[in-house]
Structures are given as C-alpha cells and as structure tokens.
C-alpha cells in the first residue's frame, strides 16, 4: 500500500516530468501536430485523405528505417549502413523479380530473399561491432560502402522497373483502405510485440551502461548483435516500401536516407548515447522530416532555397524538442 501511495504522489508532483519520462516522444508529437497545422494552413488540400495516403506511402520507408536505427541506438550503437542496406535489398529484389518473371508468388519469394539479405547485413554489422569490437560509426561506414558496392554489382545502372504486380499492390486500395495503411497496422503490431519483449529492455539496459549490464549477467555481445539484426530486418522492410514507392531498382536509392534516419531517431526523443528512447518517437521523427519537406514545398520556396530552409526547419524542430524537455525538467 505504501508503495502505491508514494508512487502516485510522485506522479502528481512532477506532472509533465513524469509524462516525459514515460513518453519521451511527447515534444516530437507536439512538433508534429504543429507541422500538420502549418501544412493545412498553407495548403488545405494537404489534409485530405489522398494527400495523407501519399505522405505515408512516401515516408513509410523512412519511418521503418528510423525504427531500424532505433534498435541499435537503444544499445548505444549506431548504424550508418542502413541506407546502403536499403539500396542492396532494393536491387536484389528488383533483379530477382525480373529474373523470375514477376508473378505473384515470385514477388513474394523475392521479398523473402530481400528480407533475408537485410538480416544477413545486420548479422555482419553486429559481428563486426559487438563481436570484433570495432567502432560502430566507422565500421558501419565501411560496411555501408561495402553494401553499396554489392548493390552496384547486382545492378550497375538504375532503372530496371519493378513488375506491375508489385507496385500496383503497394499503391493499391483494398476494402476501401489503401494498402500502405495495412502495412502501417502490421508494423505497429510487430513494434508493439517487440516493445514488450525482453530484448527491448535488454537493449536499453546495455545502452544505459554496457559494463553494468555485463556485470548483471546479460549476454551483452549477443544482445548488441540482435539489435543489429533487428536493424537489418527493418532496413529490408524499408527497402520493400522504397521499391513499392519508386517502382524501380536503383543501387544508390538509400544512400541519402541514412542520416535522415539518425535525425528522425533524435527528433523522436531518443538519446544517441543509448539507454533511452522509443520506436514511436522515431516514427514521429520520420513524419516530422516528411512534413518539413512537404511544407517547404507548399510554402512555395524557390528550388535553390529548399535545402537551406529544410535544414533550418530540422534545426528548429530539434531545438523545440530540447526546449520542451528542458522546460519540463526545470
């Protein structure tokens, strides 16, 4: 009884603080709402169902990539090869689908190979970093070049189209609901399960203090490898979405997405030093980046200024997040 009483009084004392502790993505959510409102103000049509579907299908890949990045960031690691994994999986499935004829079953088979490719990349990264104890930033930078090299070997020139069966499904509507929303629902379910699994807590504990986790008897190396494997898996899923969105193979398609995924994770309130974060936050972070991009477009920024405005907007979003959490702590 005493325990219950004391914990509830603690919750009353620091309202916002305890909310932030439990849901560190709240500042990101506030920024997201603000961006949605701004988008609606400058372009009322952007709030239509069609526009939102478009936004989701374009940025679903980045959301998944941010999720992928989150699992390694949980453990205090980082993966700069996620973009390269996206490229590699993209060209692998494109080439396989073309080779196998592009029918329904072969598309599924190609996707399965793609997912296994992503997992294999994750295993490689995990063994390099957790097993051989290489520095995560440099090692994944190196593997990113390696994976890109593989992608260029598989498909030297961009442009091979995806079979119709693939992109029509991705862009299609079933029972009145666009396919991408089924994907979102399935991913949400998987993330919900993952969040309740022991692995999530273990990854966070490792990221908090790897030595403490080791002394507590956790298999630290294995846990970090599992983090990279999850990262590879979700990168592959992101690649499937990229392929559905672009409907073609491109050995460099994921390159630019890597640092966006890191930015999304940070915008979502996760600590790059590890030990704190949520996948929900990262998904919101990816949406923030997507909305900033479309806002820059809707406001009518001249093309030569778009990068500058976009960079400033991300900086402002980061600052707003920091200010909100600092205000709550004070």
């Amino acid at each position, binding site marked *: 009884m005493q*325990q219950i009483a*004391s914990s509830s009084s603690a919750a009353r004392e620091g309202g916002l603080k305890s909310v932030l502790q439990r849901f560190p993505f709240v500042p990101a959510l506030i920024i997201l709402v603000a961006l949605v409102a701004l988008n609606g103000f400058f372009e009322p049509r952007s709030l239509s169902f069609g526009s939102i579907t478009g936004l989701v299908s374009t940025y679903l890949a980045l959301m998944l990539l941010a999720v992928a990045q989150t699992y390694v960031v949980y453990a205090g690691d980082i993966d700069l090869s996620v973009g390269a994994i996206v490229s590699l999986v993209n060209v692998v499935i494109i080439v396989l689908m073309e080779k196998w004829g592009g029918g329904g079953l072969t598309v599924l088979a190609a996707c399965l190979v793609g997912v296994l490719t992503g997992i294999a990349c994750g295993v490689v990264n995990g063994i390099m970093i957790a097993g051989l104890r290489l520095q995560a930033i440099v090692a994944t930078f190196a593997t990113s070049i390696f994976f890109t090299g593989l992608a260029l070997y598989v498909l030297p020139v961009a442009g091979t189209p995806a079979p119709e069966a693939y992109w029509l499904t991705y862009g299609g509507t079933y029972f009145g609901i666009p396919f991408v929303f089924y994907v979102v629902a399935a991913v949400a379910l998987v993330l919900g399960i993952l969040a*309740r699994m*022991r692995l999530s*807590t273990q990854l966070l504990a490792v990221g908090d203090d790897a*030595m403490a986790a080791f002394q507590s*008897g956790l298999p630290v190396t294995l846990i970090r490898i599992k983090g990279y494997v999850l990262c590879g898996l979700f990168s592959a899923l992101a690649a499937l979405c990229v392929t559905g969105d672009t409907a073609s193979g491109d050995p460099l398609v994921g390159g630019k997405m890597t640092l966006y995924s890191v930015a999304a994770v940070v915008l979502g309130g996760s600590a790059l030093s590890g*030990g704190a974060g949520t996948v929900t936050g990262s998904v919101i972070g990816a949406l923030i980046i997507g909305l900033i991009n479309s806002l820059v477009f809707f406001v009518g920024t001249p093309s030569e200024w778009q990068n500058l405005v976009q960079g400033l907007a991300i900086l402002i979003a980061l600052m707003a997040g920091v200010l909100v959490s600092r205000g709550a702590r004070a």
Partner: protein
Amino acid sequence: MSELLIRGARKAYGATLALRRGDLHLLPGEVHVLIGSNGSGKSTLCKIVAGSVKPDAGEVLLDGKPVTIAGPQAARALGIGIFYQELSLAARRTVAENIYLPALPVKSGVFVDRATLEEKARRVIADFADVAGEGFSADTPVETLRADQRQLVEIMKALATEAPVLIFDEPTSALDRAQVDRFFEILRRLKGEGRAIIFISHRMDEIFAIGDRVTVIRDGETVATSRIAETDQATIIHQMVGEREELATPSVAPAVHATSRATVLSVQDFSGPGFRNVGFEVAKGEILGFGGLHGQGQSSVMRAIFGALPHQAGSITLNGKAHAMRSPREAIAAGCAYVSGDRRRDGILQGRPLLENLTPIHFLRNRLMLARPSRLRERALKPLQALKTKFQALEQPINSLSGGNQQKIVIARWLIDRPDVLLLDDPTKGIDLAAKTDLFALIRELAAEGMGIVLYSSEDAELLNNADRILVFNSGSVTRELTGADRTRYNLYHAAYEAA
C-alpha cells in the same frame, strides 16, 4: 547450501599484479568478512568468484568440485550472486527492471511479464520499505534516486538472485544507520537459511557487528583467517598493515583555538536544494567538521559553496569578500577547493594520464595557455610526493591506480596552487586505512599552514578524531555544534538521531 573454496587465485593486469595468491574458504551459514587495504586484491578476488574476471592461475572448488566460472552468467548458474562496489545499475530503467535485469520474468514465451516483475520486486522492496525514504517504488527510474537508494537497489538485486553464495563488496558505503541495521537483519536471516555470504567493508564497527569470520588480504595475498570472536581491531589492522610502519595515532585533541584566528570563510543564511538557513564560519587553520546521518545536506552545502549546485539564498564571504559562487570556475578563482568522495563523478578524468589529472586547476588559476611539460611535471610531482602517492609514471592512465591513490591525485591537483578553503566531501570513501592516515596527516598540516578546511565524513570516527568543531546536520539544517570536550560519539549520535 554451498561451500566455496578458492586456492592460489592469481590475476595480473598487464604489469600490475592485482592478486598474487588469493585463498578463501567460505562455509554455508556464515558471514565471511574480507578485509584489506585498497589495492590489496579483495575486489579482484570477488570478481573472480563472480565470473567477471578470469584468474590467471588457481582453482575454485564449489562443494568440493572444481569449477571454472566463465562469466557472470556462469556464476549465476552456479548459484553465486554479487553486489558490486561500482554500481551495476541501468540508470534509466526502473527499480523493478534493475532488480530483475539478469532474469526478467517472461510470459507466453516472448513478452516481459510486467505484473510478475512488479509483484516480485515489491516483495524484495518490502524488506526495506520503511528505511528506503521518499520516492522509492518499483516503477521509479533509478536515475531519480539518491545514492543511498541506488545502493539499496543494488543490494536488492543481489538478494533477488536468491543465490546460495552472496558477495557484498562494500554494500554499506552510502547507507545511513537505519538502512545498515535493516540490511544486517536481512543478512542474519540469510545466514540462518544457510547461505554463504562474503562481506567487504572498511568500517570496523560493521565488521564486528555482522561478521563470523574474517580473512585478511595484504598485497594480493591471503594473510590470515580467524573467527571474529577471537580477534580484535588492533590485530586485524596489524595483519593488514604487516611489517609496515605503525599507524600514526589520530590527533585526538587538536589544539587549535579558532576564535583567535582570522575568519577565512563565512557562510550566512545559506539555503538551497536540500539545506536551509545554514550559517557558519571557518577560521584560518581550523578543520570544521560536518556530521550527522548520511545525506542530511552536508554534501549539498559544500557543493553549493563550490558553485556546483545553485543556492537560493544566503551569502558566502571568502577572505572578507562576498562571492556569488555561480559556478565552480568562480569558486576556484576565489580560492576554493572541493574534493569529493565520488571520484568517478567529481574527481578523475577517466582514462587520462596522471599529469592531465593533476594540472587542470593549475592551468585555470594561472590562466595558462601554454606550459613547458618539464616545469609542469616538476610542479605536479611535489604534492604527489607529499601525499606519498604510489605510481609508476606521470603518463600512466589514472584508472590504473587504486582508489586511494586516485584520490591522492585529485587532492594533489589542488595543492599545486594552495587554495584558501578546502572543502572535503567524504574524501575517504572507499580508501584504505593507510591512505586515510596519510590523508588526515596532510589535512592537519595544511590547516596548520593556515588553510581553512571543511570536512564531511560518513565515518564518525574520522570526524571526531580530526575536526576541531563539528556541526551536526539533520534534515538540511545545523542542529547542533560540538566543540571541545563535547565532541563525543554519544553527543554526535544524539544530535544526529534527534527528530528534526
């Protein structure tokens, strides 16, 4: 019921031999005290048992059978649970998650079973519920807890393993009296259940209160094992010290008359987080003691004077000049020095060479931009020699030294340019007896040279032996001042335990 026998355990870290010949015979149903000065190898011995350090030689027998303890997981499987001196907590996880981190309960194969976790954690917490203090519950993130509460979590984590062999490496260093008493009650209960318990502490009174047998380790070798009832403090200290010089007797009655000297530090109506309306003056050459139970604001007052914590009201006058002390930088410039017992947080620059650890204050106080390494080394060496620091070279990383020697480096840093006021915040935490003696001799010397010293110690004996005056803190205020012949253990306890 487990019997543990370690024979001839040996461990070297590079050139440093941490453990030469570690022997230990642990019986079921006993609290076996392991004692030795810092760097003598007792923590290494424990880590070998816990599997986090692999011995170079020697054998471990569990119930008569030789075993190899490959890692912390293997140790757990063999029924060995450990409390670590360096805390092994994940700061952002909750109390419950931390207690059961090694073995989170799982349901339906994959999910963490939150209900069982909380329920099990509550049961462990219940043992300490009335002494844990405010804001301690199963779902509190560990980072929001006080140091003593974190130590309790660490204890609970060790208890929750329900292992037949339990190792407690300095489990009481941050606890207050009531918490220690409760912990000892639990230890006695476990002992009654037939568990074998290794207990390490630097506090003699605790050793005699809870121990059944004691094994003394000196310079990496097991020297003797005896029954507590058949030994005494002097014998144990003698075994620890060995052939070395006799320990200097503590200065029982420091004969400094504060009133006749000039005031160097004056603090008035000082209020801030964890303390209120604190006022005192420190004279040149005086050692002012802060006493009382742990965490009654002693530390916070010092940190606030040093500018490391904000204060809300009050004035600080140093050498007749008022200072706002908004940051440690300002305090250092004004002539303040602060040495904390929490070396990892406040003192050392992890992994950096000794020279870098010795010189930051020198650079700051002299506004040096450039310095000749030879001159710097010469300046740095002087205080190190005065402190009898053991080290090989100024280039070796500070982590390669034992806790006591690390603390000497931290203190030496301040002595290159003499400060006017030295704030010592439990400076001997985790330091061996010989180093403590060196340290207090030096502190007295510094006082004699005219420095004003404020000393907080969690060990009452240190305070009584070394402070000229003692301010007893209770719930953030000074409740009593003990001077002259009033400085007795009875008066100190009386004032500390009084309801504020």
